[in-house]
């Protein structure tokens, strides 16, 4: 049962108040029509799935509705870092 402190509303939000949004920092190529099939497939489907630190997108869906980024250890479930969506994770 993950608890995250939402960087927008400052509240501790329980897992049931949150929505998980997959891996963070996935870049959608700016010029889709110019992107190769390989690049677009990479963007759509390929994820790192690490054992250890994982960068994730979460939404405070039950609260203030904002998306933010989280670094989470996939083994211990420790939350290493939480940042607003405009920032990059350093953990």
């Amino acid at each position, binding site marked *: 049962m993950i*608890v995250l402190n939402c960087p927008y509303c400052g509240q501790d939000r329980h897992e049931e108040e949150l929505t998980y949004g997959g891996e963070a920092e996935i870049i959608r190529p700016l010029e889709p029509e110019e992107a190769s099939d390989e690049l677009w497939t990479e963007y759509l489907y390929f994820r790192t799935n690490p054992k250890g630190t994982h960068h994730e997108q979460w939404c405070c869906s039950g609260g203030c509705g904002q998306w933010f980024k989280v670094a989470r250890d996939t083994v211990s479930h420790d*939350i290493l870092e939480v940042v607003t*969506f405009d920032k990059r994770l350093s953990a």
Partner: protein
Amino acid sequence: MSGYRLKSGGRIDRSKPLNFTFDGRAMQGFAGDTLSSAILANGVGTIGRSFKYHRPRGIYAAGIEDPNAMLEVVDGHGREPGLRAGQVHLVEGLQARSVTGWPSPQFDLVSAATRLMSPFMTAGFYYKTLKWPNWSWYEEAVRKAAGFGAPDGTVDGRQREYRHASCDVLVIGAGPAGLAAVSSLKGSGRDVVLVDHASSAGGALRWEAAQIDGSEGMIWADKVVADCQADGGQVLLNTFVTGAYEGNYFTLIESLVDHRGLKAERIWKLRAREIIMATGAVDRPLVYQNNDRPGTFLSTSVRQFISEYGVAPGKRLAIFTNNDSGYLTALQAAAAGMATPVVIDTRSAPSAAHVEAAREKGIEVFVQSQVADVVGGRGLRAVRVVDQAGKIRTVSCDAIALTGGATPMIHLAAHRGAKPIYDEASASFVCATLPKGWHGAGAATGSRELADVLAQGHAAGQAIVATVNSAPVANVALGMGDVVPMWQAKTGSAKKMFVDLQNDVKASDVQLAAQENYISAEHLKRYSTLGMGTDQGRTSNINGLAIMAAATGREVAKVGTTTFRPPYTATRMGAIAHHRQNDGFAPRRRMPAHSDHASNGAQFEDFGWQRPDWYTKNGSDREAAVGIEMTAVRTGVGVFDASPLGKVEVVGPDARVFINKFYVSNLATLKPGRIRYSVMCHDDGIIFDDGVVACVDDNFFLAGPTSGNAETVGAWFERWRQTEWPDMAVAIAPVTSNWAAIALAGPKARDLLARLSPDFDISGEGFAHMHFREGTIGGVPARAARVSFTGELQYEIAVPARYGQALMQAALSEGADLGAVPVGMEAWLRLRLEKGYLHLGADTNGRTTPLDIGMGGVVMKKAADFIGKRALSLPYNASEGREELVGLKPVDAPIKIGGRILADGYAQIPCPSIGNVTSACDSPLAGNIAMALIEGGSKRMGEKVKIYAEGKITEAEVCSPVFVDPQNERLHA
């Protein structure tokens, strides 16, 4: 068997006798008894039969670790088929029954039969018999013989509560370690929650003789609790911590017992910053021949029965031990006035102080000795003691107390992934590293002496916050000492040595598992069912693992343990369900005119919202009513409640650019007051919603996602705005539930709309198909769209939800002479099928793209990027032969929804399939019609295909999906 109530002693209230029954026999106990202690005090020996072999079994322990004492219990609040007797508070009038013997545990018919079968019921029994020769030969007999009681089908009326909370420090266990931690935190300002499963704090102090800080142990305990409460701490008794989860989040179950029994339960969902794990330990039994006979007890439980409940488990006690704590049991038995007990000690050099204290009381001690067997079937009469030289003596006794050391209760830390490691000194598995924020103390960490336990508890408190409080000082004569393991008796048959009493797993089963190469802890568990019972192997796991270690020539540490998972102890489904039963099961959503639908005989179905499927007002059965509803729409006017349809306002200077990124159709050119239909994809090109978009003004678009996706689409817009286009000047307002909406559909829809007093021009030219208007209807603010899901002249009118009921009533009463009837979902969906309109999720699946539903032309015309566009040109999306949506007409028999289309050239199944029927119905205008997704469907017009459904193969012809009014004359009327 001869348990009895001691003349004095115990923490029971002898002034409050309580009557109860066990298997119909009237018995008496006292306030403060558990069902276990009360049954024992009444001299009952056999309380049930074992799981596989139906051997007689008796009360074995005082608490939830008892693998035998599962009973059906009826109290003043309800009946439950299988409760742990040690956990049931005795109340007046309680009825308890055995659940494992038939017709009774004393005379068990199944036992005779299973005795014949027992050679077959070894480790891997289920694995082997499910494969060979034929499970069904055994099933009936096994099912009858197995299990712990059956529910009687009545609804459990106990009250349930939930509580969400948090605290600074959660102290789990109110024994000496937990209490030392609480006393260490006194005055620290920390918000403490102290939890214990017993009805009073004190843990082992409730039955052990110990002085702390100069007073009797329980007086000290009561003072610590009172101080904690005075400090603002919360003390939860009768409460189990059932699970530990990430984020130091815990589930607790608190029981509220009144004079009639278990009245209510409360599930706590508690989050704690720091945790003190002072969960204690339970005795580990010893494994010897016939170690399951009634009259066999865990040693600490015997002390608990004597000193907490004033119950002697037998007239003369033998104690079988491999550590000093067995002597404490002997001394307590002697002090309680029971016949002088005897101690059988496996060790060669027990503590001199303990031996001397025992001999002083005349207690005979056999050192370097083991129990080889017992005498007595349903009740113990004697034990056979074998010494180092192999000499066997018979010692008469009617009860035996076992201690093979203590098993620390590390479950909760293990729930969090803490790894159990083997500790030589205590011969047990402990958690060397605890999760973040956790502090271990007491017997849960393998500690065996009270002084250490108190010091650890104090240190745990100080580790959280330093205070001036000093550590409690213990004064106790004798302790437990080191444990010298004895995992399996040297003498006797492994086939009669029980390791797991609840699942009837014997030492020989563990050895067989080893022989058959199921040697890892997890394989052993599944193959032999060791530790898989409701007691979760509390008393059996470590013995089983050690026997496995011996059988495979490994150290115990190398075998490891199985994974502990929540719940810590069996939890009532009712407590978890809370209010979520009957109508509370899922939050039902009601449309504003719900009660009007009900009074028209709506047969509601849950489509996320409670929606009428059809109306009994229109016909006595579904087919008749649906036919009338469809005909009304085609010939007069139908009134359909469309309130759940999504309404998402997209506003701002960039609203147009923004919304154009979501739909596959070009919205850049959509003029104010106009509407366009389109579909929306995920970025992989797969359709996930469809609907219409209205341009209210250049900075205001109103999207109408499907009912089921109303919230999802609003959130989808918002996510892209926040994460991909944060600089776009756009805002999203999801307003679905603010508006009630009805659709008027049919050739007389305009006549009906006119009677609802719109303040705007509704003529065919003034309000043409795919136009949007704002104004008033019936004197209230309204949004009107001329769109059609039925192929008829159709208006969708939305008014603030408070007027929804009145609008529905007005439409039906004003339209009565036009033939207006309420139309349900089924008719509505059949009407759209007649027109070949897509029903999202039925006619599309997780692979369907806009190209597959005939929207290729629309996609091609749109120059701007949209979500999903690029993926449509990926090779697998652009390839030939994909499943495409087409119509089907029957050739020989009606088409069934869900039917599989046979691949070309096949006339029989099994064969490859090239698609499936996605929608099918009988239409009053077009007969039997269907839509299907078929590989290369658009190129198969006129082809015959074979369909397999419900065991039959039928034939159909591929056609255009538009079955009614292909020229759209009705639509533009």
